[in-house]
């Protein structure tokens, strides 16, 4: 297989979905129902990624206390609820993870 052809085609099917909607912005008006749906995109996609990254470890669901990713995520969630502050949330989550790694 021609590797450079593969790269060119991969680049095309990566770039087009990223660019097309942006290219059309201001030119097409989306139906209101679609506009409403798009508002939920950040929450929907980022939470789905959080779910798979925190709860799926080594290819399987891990809800045990040994899953430090999940515990750090839970701590970050609680801190974020209280503070609503990105920087503090990250520091708290990472501190929790580091403490668990080092001391447990």
């Amino acid at each position, binding site marked *: 297989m021609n590797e*450079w052809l593969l790269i060119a085609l991969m680049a095309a099917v990566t770039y087009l979905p990223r660019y097309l909607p942006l290219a059309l912005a201001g030119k097409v008006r989306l139906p209101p129902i679609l506009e409403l749906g798009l508002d939920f995109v950040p929450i929907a996609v980022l939470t789905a990624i959080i779910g798979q990254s925190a709860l799926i470890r080594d290819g399987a669901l891990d809800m045990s206390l040994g899953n430090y990713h999940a515990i750090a995520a839970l701590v970050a969630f609680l801190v974020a609820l209280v503070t609503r502050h990105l920087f503090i949330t990250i520091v708290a989550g990472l501190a929790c*993870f580091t403490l668990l790694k080092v001391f447990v």
Partner: protein
Amino acid sequence: MHNLVYNCVLALNDPEPSMHTPAKQLWLGALETLPLVVAAFPFGIVFGAMANTMELGLAVTVGMSAIVFAGASQFIALTLLAGAAALPVIVMTVFIVNLRQMLYSANLMHHVGYWPQWQRAVLAFFLTDETFAVVSDRLNRHPGAPGLRWFYLGSAIFMYSFWQLSTALGYALGGQIPGLSDWGLDVAMVVAFVGIVVPALRAHADWACAAVALVSAVLTHDWPHQTGLLFSSLLAVAAGMLISRRRGHE
């Protein structure tokens, strides 16, 4: 050094981004992407090492990172290449994986209507999960604030350069990967995303959307080629829409 840290904290707290110069916006965008860069770094190393093991040339490996610039797609391409998949199969799969990013692009449509087309064309290339996350966080905290393009560019350059660096490093290290992937650095991405999502949860519909996304993503984690992620996102969007229509716009 203390002064630098103090400035970082201050910058992330600053309620008035309109006061910022382009240079400061660039810096802020990069700064907010830092935990995500840290989380992506081991993946880049593993990608480079994997490509080396598969006897992909250095130019092809670095070229793929530089021209395609999409972590998940690159991993999937390697896996399919190893399994001797046909070219159309790989391209189609990569396309499906990237449909998620079409949602990002569509979500940003509101905000880029006045950007010149060439700027959209350039910035679209850098629309990764990471950059979308920090950009959408900024839009959530400071809707309508000027300088978004610089902030976006700062995030993009930082993410891009470290992705190149990490894949090249991984390739150079080859078989001798330092156990970097065992450190669990991806936790930085998890907690950063939590810090970005939670402040955006306001109405009941937002919470419903997040809950559906979480549960569905876990249940569909073994679907091939991240289709579970795409499916869960769409399902969660539908849930959010349903609740917000039922309750009226909150």
